[in-house]
């Protein structure tokens, strides 16, 4: 790294280059033997299981609020029976994946950024490397794979809880059986809705892990850089989530229709 401060777009371009190199390093270590299973499982626990309460609660409330907000509008069109359909489509295709990903960016990307950042500051990453072990494989590959696997699962469970929230909101005002509600939700969905939504959550998970690891792993060696790593991990990961969302909707629309 260079002491000279690169200004503006030059430093941004340099960072993009570093990210590409980091990605290459990740891929190289991904296909190297000796996968760290126990660390991977630990990360799945930390990233997946421990985020479930937060993601589930948020999704449930989102579903509830959306149903309450949509109801008056649909009633004014005389389309109250469209409520399950509009909830299902909006939650499965957009709200569920994006809200879950943004929450995970806030919780997981910042957590990884801070953890790896402080490991960098306290020379733990250097120690691992100097001892001849492989910190990329132990720290980065496991975390990126864990987020890539866990964020889609969190999204699926979040979707279900969001729909249950919507069901509760509908039953505050009227009464619809759970069977009818889920039947209507399922009936309004096709694979062309489910598949792009699911695929994009995989990308979301990857980007959350990747940006968190990149920011933490490449943070500077000062105490304040831990905070910077955590903070910029959230900002950059959230930005990427929206960019990926826009790309996926464009690509899936051209592929499907």
């Amino acid at each position: 790294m260079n002491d000279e401060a690169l200004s503006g777009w030059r430093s941004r371009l340099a960072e993009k280059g570093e990210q590409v190199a980091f990605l290459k390093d990740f891929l190289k270590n991904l296909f190297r033997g000796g996968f760290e299973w126990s660390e991977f499982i630990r990360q799945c626990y930390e990233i997946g299981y421990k985020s479930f309460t937060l993601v589930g609660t948020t999704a449930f409330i989102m579903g509830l609020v959306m149903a309450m907000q949509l109801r008056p509008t649909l009633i004014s069109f005389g389309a109250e029976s469209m409520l399950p359909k509009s909830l299902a489509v909006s939650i499965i295709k957009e709200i569920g994946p994006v809200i879950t990903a943004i929450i995970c960016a806030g919780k997981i990307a910042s957590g990884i950024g801070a953890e790896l950042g402080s490991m960098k500051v306290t020379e733990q990453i250097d120690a691992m490397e100097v001892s001849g072990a492989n910190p990329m494989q132990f720290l980065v590959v496991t975390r990126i794979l864990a987020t890539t696997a866990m964020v889609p699962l969190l999204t699926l469970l979040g979707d279900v809880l969001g729909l249950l929230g919507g069901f509760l909101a509908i039953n505050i005002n009227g009464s619809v059986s759970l069977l009818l509600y889920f039947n209507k939700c399922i009936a309004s969905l096709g694979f062309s809705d489910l598949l792009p939504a699911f695929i994009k959550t995989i990308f979301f998970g990857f980007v959350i892990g990747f940006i968190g690891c990149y920011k933490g792993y490449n943070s500077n060696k000062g105490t304040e850089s831990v905070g910077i790593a955590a903070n910029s991990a959230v900002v950059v990961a959230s930005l990427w989530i929206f960019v990926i969302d826009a790309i996926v909707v464009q690509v899936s629309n051209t592929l499907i229709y």
Partner: protein
Amino acid sequence: MWDLTTKETASVQEHENVLHIKGLKKSFGKKEVLRDIDLDVKRGENVVVLGKSGSGKSVIIQCIVGMISPDAGVLQVFGEEVSSLNEKELKKLRTRIGFLFQSGALYDSMTVRENMEFPLMRILKLRNQAEIDKRVEEVLKSVGLFESIDKMPSDLSGGMRKRAGLARTLVLNPELMLYDEPTTGLDPITSREISNLVLQIQKKYKTTAIIITHDMECAAITADRVLVLSDGEFIAEGSFEAIKNSKDKHVSSFFK
């Protein structure tokens, strides 16, 4: 350079050269940290490097393990040029070198035992749990930390962390030990204990060592030979006593 130890160098010359550095240069941006470093370390020798903060002592040992690539000069460890090694060879070289970080650098998400197991399982690829336990317990006993085997690093004192860090590098039986300020941040009594530990390690494991410090007591206990770093060059070399009695004002300023 002031050569104050003609007698001693002659006596170690018959040993194998573990480290050979000639004309090493390193700058960060416009800042010239290492200007011209020459250093030869024989097998079994404890070399102490003195120098004020920011003089580039850590940079030297980071170059030795390939964490920093020098701008110019010869740098051979165990007869191999470090800059010419590929990734796999560098990794192999690193397993023969023990590096004790200034902070200890314990993996703070793991217990002391797991910290010791980490390099055993990944670098020596040991799978036999009984053998792993035996080695972990032995090395922890030799640094006097056996009672804390299942503690988390955050529950250890500064001295205990240093010992644990030391144990983790020793568990791989390194041939060359690089100590980056093993006694900073410790009280005088603990410092003396750690210094004696460094000496014991040299005897027990037959290691060669480079010890970076600005703790004179540590230098006095551990050093076979002392080098003084200033402005990117070694300005003095000799036994601890010889350096201590030096007339040079840069050198003698360390002893005030």
